[in-house]
């Protein structure tokens, strides 16, 4: 039988006092409401500044003026013309760059020869600002859509290839060994172990390449396009139509947000196991 210790008694001379809590902080969480409230306050202040005449509308038009500009653009059909031109360029360039980047990234991740060659080329070419290649691409491919799409594809390709081979490298080796120990064939290990294991890094790469594509489409359209958000923003700037200029910026921002949301949905569906 176990001996029981007598109940401890607290003497009057040693009154208990609470242990001081020291564990507060360092656990920030993203409060959705606070973010929206802060954004609303900034827009409200901006509107107030514009309406009260505190800032010159030529330099910073009020949010209401920007909203009106977007509305008029939508009514005239120009908005769709510009947005669709940009979306087609981004979509084509991103898709081409992503497909090639995934193929090359997997090659580098899985083959010693491809790694040796691929990493050398990627290290040499990745730091080049891709927009600097646009004039050369115009020389090669003409002045149509091709050089703009190629510029976006190049920008997307390098980031995708890097994120894919980093993702392949990050797949726990023990999972690959496990699959090998069960005689699972090579292609099945790639499809059922390496691909899902690398997916978090690949999707994180998509987030980056979507921004790269947006940046490059605007830059490319500013250099040589009649339609597209970049061309529209440049044109508005040249004509001092700052409400239209900012309308273009807002549309770009909304586009970026939409892409971010789409990737969030994709992550939630594909990475639910994390």
């Amino acid at each position: 039988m176990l001996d029981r210790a007598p109940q401890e008694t607290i003497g009057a001379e040693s009154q208990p006092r609470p242990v001081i809590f020291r564990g507060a902080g360092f656990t920030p969480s993203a409060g959705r409401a606070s973010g929206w409230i802060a954004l609303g306050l900034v827009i409200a202040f901006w509107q107030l500044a514009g309406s009260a005449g505190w800032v010159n509308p030529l330099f910073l038009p009020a949010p209401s003026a920007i909203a009106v500009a977007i509305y008029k653009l939508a009514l005239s059909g120009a908005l769709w013309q510009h947005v669709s031109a940009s979306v087609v360029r981004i979509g084509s360039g991103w898709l081409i760059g992503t497909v090639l980047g995934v193929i090359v990234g997997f090659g580098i991740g899985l083959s010693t020869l491809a790694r040796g060659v691929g990493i050398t080329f990627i290290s040499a070419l990745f730091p080049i600002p891709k927009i600097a290649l646009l004039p050369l691409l115009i020389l090669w491919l003409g002045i149509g859509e091709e050089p703009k799409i190629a510029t976006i594809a190049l920008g997307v390709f390098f980031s995708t290839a890097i994120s894919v081979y980093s993702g392949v490298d990050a797949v726990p080796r023990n999972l690959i060994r496990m699959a090998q120990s069960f005689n699972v064939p090579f292609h099945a290990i790639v499809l059922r172990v390496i691909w899902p294991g690398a997916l978090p890094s690949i999707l994180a790469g998509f987030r980056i390449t979507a921004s790269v594509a947006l940046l490059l489409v605007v830059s490319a359209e500013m250099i040589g396009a009649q339609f597209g958000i970049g061309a529209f923003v440049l044109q508005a700037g040249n004509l001092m139509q700052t409400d239209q200029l900012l309308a273009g910026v807002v549309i770009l921002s909304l586009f970026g947000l939409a892409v971010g949301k789409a990737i969030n949905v994709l992550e939630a569906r594909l990475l639910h196991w994390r």
Partner: protein
Amino acid sequence: MDLIADQISHRFDGLDVLDRVSFTVASGEVVAIVGPSGCGKSTLLSILGGLLRPSEGAAELRGAPPADSLNPLTFVFQDFALLPWCTVEANIEFPLVHTVLDPAARKAVVDDALRRTGLSDFRGAYPKQLSGGMRQRVGIARALAVRPAILLMDEPLSALDSQTRELLMEDFIRLLADGTMGAVYVTHNLEEAVRLADRIVVLSRRPGRIREIVTIPMTRAERGGIDARGKLLSLQNQLWSLIREEAIDAEREVQHA
């Protein structure tokens, strides 16, 4: 089917890890491999299982595996090696997908493995939702699903708490009871070795050489009795005396590395 370690030596990055290790695991026999840290136990197991090519010597099989065996040499991993994106059921089915079994037969095998490991109620769970012990049960169920002739177990209980270890040890004893399946059991834990193994291969510190092969002079069924406890403890002490000095040296070596 026998598994033979034939004069296995292994060198890695200029370091001699194993030196002419030879022994045979007979059909249905359980052989434990013990030794100080860094003596090459896990390396030896990888070589025996065909996951690592030895610098010299060879791992060989003698005799035919059971006709229904889908993977005669099957690993149970220390870190479970479960696919985190797959459910328990999918993890167990994973090694079966590329075998000759059709979907209905696969399902029957998976159901049987789930039942034998007490996981039937958790078939839809993901590994992150399971405790360490349950995860290792999934690893064991996956290994059983391919009907191995020899299980290669690399410290399968070392990542678990003592109560879970005890429960899984009972599972291992039950699974190995009928003698149809052999095992090579790598462990640091001498108690596990004497409770489970028919023979214990004691390796020296690096480069791992066989110091002694200790035979346990009683059946696994007999080891559960109170009378056996004294004998098992004495065997455990005998093993400890064999590796104690080298374990201390290996510990110092690791600390100075």
